């Protein structure tokens, strides 16, 4: 038997890895440490997933990373039973919109079993969902579906935007006693960063100020974070100093970090790809309005997708939040020099 690496000993060195590799590493490390961690989904086995996020895991762990029949509700329900039976299943939904057949299992059971059993049954399971557009994908492959889940009590929802968070949030999700939905930023799967995975990161429920700024705050998450950071770079050249908050976790929401950030600038733009109406971005805007009204110099603005079905590849650039659209929103924040 090969000796198992002791708990929490990832290689203590800086390396350049992609979000996808970070997610893969998180699962590999968790599976090495805990034999109860199993992965199930469509094409997650020999193929390594359509995005290759589970690449090599079946080779290393055999049937602990396994292909299922092609049925998302079945996968989700099966994972519920696995978790009740003492395992820690990680479910991969192949694409955002392909998770909809599993919605009944998620909304009626995954989210409610702990409450229904007065805390006696917990479901330590992870639901990984590659979400969002900007990849030239066809219909049903580009939805930002996070608001369905954040609207459902009982679900923890995280949305990493970079390799380090992808690794640590997924590890935290696997370790959580509650079901956690990981909204994986599909467009950023291949984006690289230099990271030292041995360095701890803030856990689930903590937002991060990823860029300091004094003039206005952009609150965003997931694959909109790099867009917001780029907008902040451009704004800097134009003479405005933008702060960027990466929410990292949507539920539970880090009111404290967001409200203190907003209070420090007095101007807010919330950025997310999802359709804006009745969305998570709207929740953020409402919370800021309720809690920070007296710190605000202007109404909270949202930059989101339009309220249309996700458009085809040739038109998606018009739908997604862009640097220009974010800067236009920033410009509209009732500046005193205007």
């Amino acid at each position, binding site marked *: 038997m090969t000796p198992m690496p002791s708990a929490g000993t990832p290689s203590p060195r800086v390396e350049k890895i992609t979000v996808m590799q970070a997610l893969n590493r998180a699962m590999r490390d968790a599976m090495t440490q805990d034999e109860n961690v199993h992965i199930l989904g469509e094409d997650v086995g020999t193929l390594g997933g359509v995005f290759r996020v589970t690449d090599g895991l079946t080779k290393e762990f055999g049937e602990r990373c396994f292909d299922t029949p092609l049925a998302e509700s079945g996968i989700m329900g099966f994972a519920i039973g696995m*978790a009740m039976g003492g395992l820690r299943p990680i479910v991969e939904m192949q694409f955002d919109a392909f998770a909809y057949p599993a919605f009944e299992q998620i909304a009626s059971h995954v989210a409610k079993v702990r*409450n229904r059993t007065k805390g006696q049954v917990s479901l330590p399971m992870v639901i990984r969902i590659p979400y969002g557009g900007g990849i030239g994908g066809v219909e049903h492959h580009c939805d930002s579906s996070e608001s369905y889940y954040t609207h459902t009590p009982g679900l923890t929802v995280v949305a990493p935007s970079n390799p380090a968070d992808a690794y640590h949030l997924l590890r935290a999700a696997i370790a959580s006693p509650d079901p956690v939905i990981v909204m994986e930023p599909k467009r950023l799967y291949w984006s690289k960063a230099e990271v030292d995975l041995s360095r701890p990161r803030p856990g689930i429920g903590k937002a991060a100020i990823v860029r300091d700024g004094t003039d206005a705050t952009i609150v965003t998450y997931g694959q909109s974070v790099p867009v917001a950071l780029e907008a902040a770079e451009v704004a800097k050249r134009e003479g405005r100093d933008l702060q960027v908050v990466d929410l990292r976790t949507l539920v*539970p929401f880090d*009111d404290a970090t967001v409200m203190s950030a907003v209070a420090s600038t007095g101007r807010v733009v919330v950025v997310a790809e999802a359709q804006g109406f009745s969305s998570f971005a709207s929740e953020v805007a409402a919370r800021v309005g309720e809690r920070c009204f007296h710190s605000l110099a202007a109404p909270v603005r949202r930059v989101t997708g339009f309220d249309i079905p996700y458009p085809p590849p040739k038109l998606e650039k018009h739908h997604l939040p862009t640097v220009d659209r974010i800067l236009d929103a920033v410009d509209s924040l009732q500046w005193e020099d205007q």
Partner: protein
Amino acid sequence: MTPRTPRAKATSASAQPSYDTESATLLPTATPIQLVDAEGNPSTAETGNLPLPDDAALVRAHELMVMGRRFNDQAGALVRQGRLAVYPSSHGQEACQVAAAMVLGDQDWLFPTYRDTVAAVSMGVDPVQILLLLAGDWHAGYDPYEFRCAPTATPLATQLVHAAGLAYAAKVKGEDKVVVAMCGDGATSEGDFHEALNFAAVFKCPVIFLIQNNEFAISVPLSRQTAAPSLAAKGVGYGMPGKRVDGNDVAALLAVMGEAADRARRGDGPTLIEAHTYRMQAHTNADDATRYRTAEEVEPWVARDPITRSEAHLRSRGLLDDAAVADLKQRAEEMAAEMRLGIGKDRDLDPAELFEHVFAKPTPQLLEQRAQLLDELAREEATK
């Protein structure tokens, strides 16, 4: 381009017979398996070559059915008294309820539906606890791990997939565990029924799927659920044996279920069992069965009652006498009295508890909301 050479006939011919042989072994019997007929005599119908269960099991099954019938009747009465919001009765289906629980050992699990409270009680769940949800509480009432009994599922067929998953977990952990997953004929139309059977068969999970075909899904008859020759016939489509059994013959149910449990324990995978029974009462107290079926339709099923049949059988074999019947009646009355007492009393529900088990640790937002509610209640109290 030359046309492709057809595959040599010998190949397909040699492959075909084994396939046919296999599917034939998976098909159910033409008529339901029956060991004891409606009069309590040894059946002359299809027995599936199964022996009669041992005497102790038959006596135990009878006791549980009598208790189950009393439970059903008492729960119905509690609805009429306004003590339960609703009760879907398994009156007439007690043989299925009891057999589902009896074939399970100390490590085994049951996944019941809302109509399977008698099965849960037969697993040892407290008759008051199982009714707490219907009595207006916010939780399922009992600890699923204590009784190895999942919370009764309301969304149809969803629990069948959980059952398959739990059985899979047991299998990969090397635990000796068999799972009985229950559903009705209506639930066989749900997608999750298909997905559960398919997953269980593909992964050879130790599960028994027990369909209580009581001929109605609220008002909709079986003919609107399926055009299949029988529900058990669906088993072959998943590669698992399908069995038809007289759902009002507890002896046959114990034998067929027991055979399926043995098969699951051997590692040979799941079995689909269709128990032919009848929903003697309306869907729930809120339903009016006269709108979709006549008394004449129900009438023949009265004579097929599972408890009358069992009592006649046991008496004819000297396994039950007047004293035992009286004793059993007494025990059933004691349980009913406990139910009246437990459900009849007003319980104080703590509104603050609504926030406690949504997550392992309440979120800051839930703590805020709980504080808001408690503040409202305190102010309300102060103005009284």
